[in-house]
């Protein structure tokens, strides 16, 4: 690798001779004569250039009278002007609708969109700021084809599931996030208002430059910076919103509950409960969901300052964000303060330095979410309606009927004190040397350090009427309080060195070379402790040393882990005459996570594009731009755990010795090490087309890809001769194929401006191998059936639902006798399960695939209007063809509430063909995993509607204000879905194998919001 670089360095040094210089100056305006600030002025074929100042003025040295100046400005058409003998120029630029000249951030560089031969999607700051969002991932939802984003929970600050081009592995499928060149885990620290652009590298050719980390896509986030010669701007942005639930589940009233309880007792041969002898007297009862949901505020204030001199740029911002939850209110609140300082300075003609630093202090209050055991939601959905929220004396009531997990949800929230505080610094400093014309060397050192502490307090409480008698069930009292403290530190650093060279030969051959190295080190340490019995029951007094119990009852624990990455990479871009573009990249990654026998991975890629519309034969009246592109590449997924290659010696393999049979420790490692362990490899081929019609008003991008994951990590069962558990090995594979289409129409010529856009993504996912023997993986255990819901096996998509199929209800004993045998207790009114193999016995062999949590396609659409200061934006987002397994009803418990659909139960021959009889004990296992609980999860959501008004510029000029905009918006205004649960947007939980299972997911809020943007 070294030699070619030296050679071309030499060649470029030879070229970097001295030029005869003359100065040209001028002024750049738009068609209304307003000065354009920050227009790039370049001398064609050289690296010389400048940009226009606040008055639109520029001054540039040109080598000769033959020189041609190129003026480029985002949103305007490029203009080339031959200098000739002129020393002063008046330049007017025309607006364009075209996006092909926009500059797109790619890995370790930036490229003009027209010259990109890979598949890269961009999300602009305008699109990001349209939605009031907490986490940056939310901005990706519905905005780009090929990126599927699902909110895992509506709880503020909760992580999202992001999948670039399908689920690439049964392990960790999250993309790599790079913020200003720094790889980061988790985006909750980042203030979305600070973001300038997000670029998603989707195909392997684009992401191969990230090698072993790029397999599941790369999300490049660039934060705002100032521009040279830019007048200082002060920007204030603020909004306030109110969140509330948009849907409630229909559950039984107390009267209905009592009626069904009586029936269920009788069916089981048990005497009904005496207090339910007159159900009508119980009336409506408690609406637990109504009691659970609250309206919750969300607020954001941001002030930012940007600008630049002829040598420096700066961008400084501060933000306060606060969001409470619609379940739990401040018990689920997320609060964040961020400060960001980005700046650059030209120290010497040949040296630029800069820094990007972001500081975040966040607090998140944790409420149990997404499980069937302890969440307030599952409790509210299952708590009987007979029990009141509070007793007559005002204290919380407890249920006489509900079992273990289902306790009073309102009290449970009250008793939750779980606070996570984290301080995070993500920052870098860099220096950029211009070594010769077109040749730069950049070195950046960055740090990502997080210091987080968590405090959990379990207060004393007792819902019993009489604390002495303690008659409340175990879940409704805690007689001894306790405190837990956890500390986490993450310390990561990265040092990157990149050499770039750009050279144009004979005006038509444009070369870009990039080569560099990275060293990255991650370290995580945790420690914590706990103790019981505090004299004070006030959460503010909850410290371990405040406990009464002796020090010997304290528990303490701690540990650490680390990883390191060392990489070398290079890329060559070549464009011929703006007609043919070719790009080749290569990366070599050495990682401590890989086994000793596979310490380094090698990731090549190749892509090519043909800009057909730049050919001489092209008659571009209708289609003004057409590019065909193809790419191929390989990259890796290194999210395989830090030490999977080795094995830890397990103690506790005991035996007893001695006359008193003393248990004596034995130690052995129970899993084999795998020194061959390596990354998961993705090989992806992509075919794409980019097209613009009607002078850029209409643009279209389409991509088809085949993405094969091989070497997927899986502990495939091994011959038992091994004597140990199967080592994790690179044995499995998955294939994703997909089609992505994006269309936009923009008309900005008239006073009434509008744009309409949409994107749609189809993905097909299939497991192609699970290694030797191919034993399937079962996952997604749900408590209501006490069984796994998903099965992953060769030939099927990852994590498809697997279970029995219902075939109506047994109406008579004769039907039971004649039907396939289910079990001894099957009776009329029970579900008839389908005898798939025709052996007349319903057993595990009659389970089949009953649903797929992956959508057939996902889509997004936006419509924006602008007229005389008014703007209206509508953003839709949806998912089609995905199934949801509804596990929110705890059928494993006898006395819990049920959805109103149970009112259609079977009560005698001919009364129901779908809803089985009620019975205390469910002897037929009607609640087993079956298609009875699989629902269509498709939805279309009006994600955002925003109406704004900007005061006219003429008025604002008087107060020296550039912009003053007021707006109102509604988020999640409408959701169209057949799903009966609280929210159809259900992501993956516990990894890729458990997607689309509703365990009482925290639903998303509907938000009404008003805001103001001021720039001056």
């Amino acid at each position: 690798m070294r030699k070619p670089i030296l050679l071309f360095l030499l060649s470029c040094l030879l070229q970097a001779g001295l030029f005869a210089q003359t100065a040209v100056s001028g002024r750049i305006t738009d068609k209304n004569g307003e000065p354009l600030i920050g227009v790039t002025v370049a001398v064609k074929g050289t690296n010389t250039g400048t940009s226009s100042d606040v008055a639109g003025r520029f001054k540039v040295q040109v080598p000769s009278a033959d020189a041609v100046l190129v003026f480029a400005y985002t949103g305007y058409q490029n203009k080339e002007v031959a200098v000739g003998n002129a020393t002063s120029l008046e330049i007017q630029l025309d607006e364009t609708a075209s996006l092909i000249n926009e500059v797109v951030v790619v890995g370790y560089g930036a490229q003009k969109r027209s010259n990109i031969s890979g598949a890269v999607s961009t999300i602009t700051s305008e699109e990001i700021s349209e939605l009031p969002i907490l986490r940056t991932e939310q901005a990706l939802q519905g905005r780009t084809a090929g990126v599927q984003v699902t909110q895992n929970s509506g709880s503020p600050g909760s992580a999202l599931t992001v999948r670039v081009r399908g689920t690439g592995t049964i392990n960790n499928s999250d993309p790599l996030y790079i913020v200003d060149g720094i790889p980061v885990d988790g985006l909750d620290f980042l203030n979305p208002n600070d973001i300038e652009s997000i670029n998603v590298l989707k195909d392997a050719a684009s992401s191969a430059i990230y090698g072993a980390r790029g397999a599941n896509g790369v999300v490049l986030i660039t934060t705002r910076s100032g521009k040279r010669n830019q007048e200082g701007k002060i920007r204030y942005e603020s909004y306030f919103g109110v969140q509330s639930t948009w849907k409630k589940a229909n559950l039984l009233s107390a009267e209905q509950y009592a009626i069904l309880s009586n029936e269920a007792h009788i069916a089981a041969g048990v005497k009904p409960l005496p207090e339910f002898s007159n159900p009508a007297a119980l009336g409506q009862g408690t609406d637990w969901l109504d009691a659970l949901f609250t309206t919750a505020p969300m607020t954001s204030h941001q002030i930012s300052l940007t600008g630049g001199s002829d040598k420096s740029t700066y961008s400084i911002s501060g933000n306060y964000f606060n969001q409470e939850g619609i379940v739990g209110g401040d018990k689920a609140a997320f609060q964040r303060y961020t400060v960001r300082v980005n700046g650059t300075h030209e120290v010497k003609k040949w040296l630029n330095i800069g820094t990007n630093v972001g500081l975040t202090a966040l607090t998140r209050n944790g409420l149990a979410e997404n499980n069937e055991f302890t969440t307030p939601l599952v409790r509210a959905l299952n708590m009987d309606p007979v029990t009141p929220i509070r007793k007559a004396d005002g204290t919380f009531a407890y249920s006489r009927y509900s079992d273990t997990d289902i306790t009073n949800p309102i009290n449970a929230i009250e008793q939750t004190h779980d606070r996570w505080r984290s301080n995070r610094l993500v920052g870098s400093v860099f220096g950029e040397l211009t070594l010769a014309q077109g040749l730069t060397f950049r070195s950046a050192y960055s740090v990502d350090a997080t210091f987080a502490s968590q405090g959990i307090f379990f207060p004393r409480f007792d819902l019993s009427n009489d604390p002495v008698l303690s008659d409340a069930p175990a879940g409704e009292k805690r007689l001894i309080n306790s405190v837990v403290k956890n500390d986490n530190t993450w310390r990561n650093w990265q040092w990157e060195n990149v050499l770039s060279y750009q050279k144009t030969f004979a005006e038509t051959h444009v070369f870009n070379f990039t080569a560099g190295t990275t060293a990255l080190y991650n370290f995580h340490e945790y420690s914590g402790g706990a103790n019981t019995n505090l004299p004070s029951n006030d959460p503010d007094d909850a410290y371990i040393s405040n406990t009464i119990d002796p020090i010997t009852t304290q528990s303490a624990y701690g540990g650490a882990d680390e990883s390191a990455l060392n990489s070398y990479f290079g890329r060559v871009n070549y464009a011929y005459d703006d007609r043919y573009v070719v790009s080749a990249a290569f990366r070599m990654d050495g990682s401590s996570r890989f086994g000793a026998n596979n310490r380094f991975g090698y990731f090549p890629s190749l892509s090519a594009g043909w800009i057909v519309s730049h050919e001489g034969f092209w008659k571009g009246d209708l289609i003004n731009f057409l590019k065909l592109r193809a790419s191929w590449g390989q990259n890796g997924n290194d999210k395989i755990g830090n030490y999977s290659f080795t094995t830890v010696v397990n103690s506790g393999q005991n035996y007893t010795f001695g006359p008193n049979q003393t248990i004596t420790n034995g130690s052995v490692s129970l899993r084999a090490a795998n020194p061959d362990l390596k990354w998961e490899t993705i090989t992806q081929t992509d075919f794409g087309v980019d097209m613009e019609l009607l002078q850029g008003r209409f643009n279209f991008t389409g991509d088809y890809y085949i993405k094969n994951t091989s070497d997927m990590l899986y502990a495939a069962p091994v011959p038992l001769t091994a004597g140990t558990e199967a080592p994790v090995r690179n044995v499995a594979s998955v294939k994703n194929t997909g089609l992505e289409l994006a269309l936009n129409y923009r008309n900005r010529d008239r006073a009434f401006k509008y744009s309409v856009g949409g994107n749609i993504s189809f993905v097909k996912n299939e497991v192609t191998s699970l290694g030797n023997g191919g034993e399937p993986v079962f996952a997604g255990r749900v408590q209501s059936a006490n069984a796994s819901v998903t099965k992953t096996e060769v030939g099927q998509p990852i994590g498809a639902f697997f279970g029995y199929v219902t075939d109506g209800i047994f109406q008579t004993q004769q039907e039971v006798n004649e039907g396939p045998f289910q079990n001894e207790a099957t009776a009329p009114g029970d579900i008839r399960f389908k005898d798939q193999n025709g052996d007349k016995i319903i057993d595990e062999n009659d389970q089949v695939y009953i649903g797929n949590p992956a959508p057939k396609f996902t889509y997004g659409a936006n419509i924006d209007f602008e007229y005389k200061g008014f703007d209206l934006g509508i953003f839709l987002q949806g998912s089609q063809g995905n199934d949801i397994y509804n596990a929110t009803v705890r059928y494993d418990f006898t006395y819990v509430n049920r959805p109103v659909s149970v009112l259609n139960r079977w009560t005698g021959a001919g009364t129901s063909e779908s809803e089985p009889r009620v019975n205390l004990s469910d002897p037929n296992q009607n609640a087993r995993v079956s298609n009875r609980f699989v629902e269509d999860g498709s939805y279309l959501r009006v994600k955002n509607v925003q109406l704004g008004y900007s005061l006219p510029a003429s008025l604002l000029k008087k107060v020296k204000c550039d912009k003053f905009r007021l707006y109102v918006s509604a988020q999640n205004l409408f959701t169209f879905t057949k799903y009966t649960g609280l929210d159809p947007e259900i992501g993956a939980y516990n990894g890729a194998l458990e997607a689309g299972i509703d365990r009482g997911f925290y639903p998303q809020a509907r938000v009404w919001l008003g805001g103001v943007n001021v720039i001056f």
Partner: protein
Amino acid sequence: MKFSKLAMLLALVLCLPIACQKDFLDRKPLVGASEENFYRNAEDAVASVNAAYAALQFEISPAGHFRWFWGDIMSDDSNKGGSGDNDANELLQLETFKGPTNTDLLEAEWLADYEGIYRANTVLERVPAINMDATLKARILGEAYFIRAWFFYNLVTVFGGVPLADHVLAPSEYNLPRASADEVWALVESDLRKSVAALPLRSQYAASDLGRITKGAAQALLVKTLLWEKKWSEAQTIAEEIVGSNEYQLVSNYADIFTQAGENNTESVFEIQYMNASGGNWGKNNANEGSFTNVFQRARGAFGGFGFNLPTDDFVAEFFKEGSEDPRLKSTVFRVGDAMGDRGVFTLDATGGFPHKYYAKKYFNNRSEEAPFGDPNPNGDSNDRVIRYSDVLLMHAEAAQHNGNENAARQSLNLVRKRARGANNAILPDVTASGTALLDAVYHERRVELGLEGHRFFDLVRTGRAQTVLGALGYVEGVHNMFPVPLSQIQATNNAIKQNPGY
């Protein structure tokens, strides 16, 4: 910028990270010992051999593979039992020699044996490099050789030739094919010889080491191995070394052997330790120290057991062969009307709808002996008496008879009978027969003395009597003397492992 600066810069960019890369990328776990940094001292060595001992306790991995499944149920001594034909139906199919090749039970046997072998191999590979007391190291290696031999002994007697995993297998070696039975026997023999040479006598161990493998245990298993190999002369010699060591003595009252007090008694040669005091669970590789045998063999219904291993009429009749009832029957079989310890009297009505005439008694435990907390079922406390001194004496008698030393044979045999008859001189007179009659007397004695201790089926196969005795049940010599290799293992190795003939 001049060229020299550039070159320096390039050197910096490209070389600096490389210079430190070797250490930079080498990251071992910071918490917990990895294999590389365990095995440092005597304590680690002891812990590693203890883990191999733990494998001796495996009975459900995750399906059952009790020694009495193969030794007793497969023979004419007992039937499967349980809650009917569907309860562990595979066991019924195996017992009637219908030969299913895909049973969880045999797969579990295979798995547990190889887990034990892996653990012993780990000791044999890791411990020699540890800098520690040489005597202790030699002992630990001797224990590991025995444990490896024991699991290969189980494999070769159940399956015949098996993959000879005589070291910790690398993932690339997992598809190891089967070795011949002779090769496996050779390894068992050589491991046991090393073990005999390295291990101390029972009396030389500290009291706190009670339960560890002794020289006597290794010698006894070696005698058994030599009998399988029909090496009569050496078998007799080594059996006599055990006798001559004066380490073992028959307990006076046969009925005491299978009581709690009878654990690790003077005639205990090789005994797998189980206890009832830990919170056990039903998982594989469980950390509990208890046995499942107690609950599996106890009668159902009021006795809270699963009712497996039901003695046959033919087995009970063996105890009456000499005219009167052999007193050992009382300690071996529950009959209707017997008190089942503190759990009540055995009546047909009390067994929960499974009115069998006989239940196995040797691994019966009283309610008062159950685990004080947790699930008692996986926490049975009866030690598994694998080799008792009377077995050694009977093996000696058998070998001596083959060697023509009939006096020596009769002497050993009559020692066992003498203890059985106790004070009652009217029964079980000394055997005076010779030739085949003497051999038959030894065989009879084995059946009644060692009944329901997991020996019978293997004794029949080993002595060539299986076709005669079990033929009526479906046994075919040349097929059923070995159980089928688990089908899953043939598939998992892509047919590198071949099935036994006849299956």
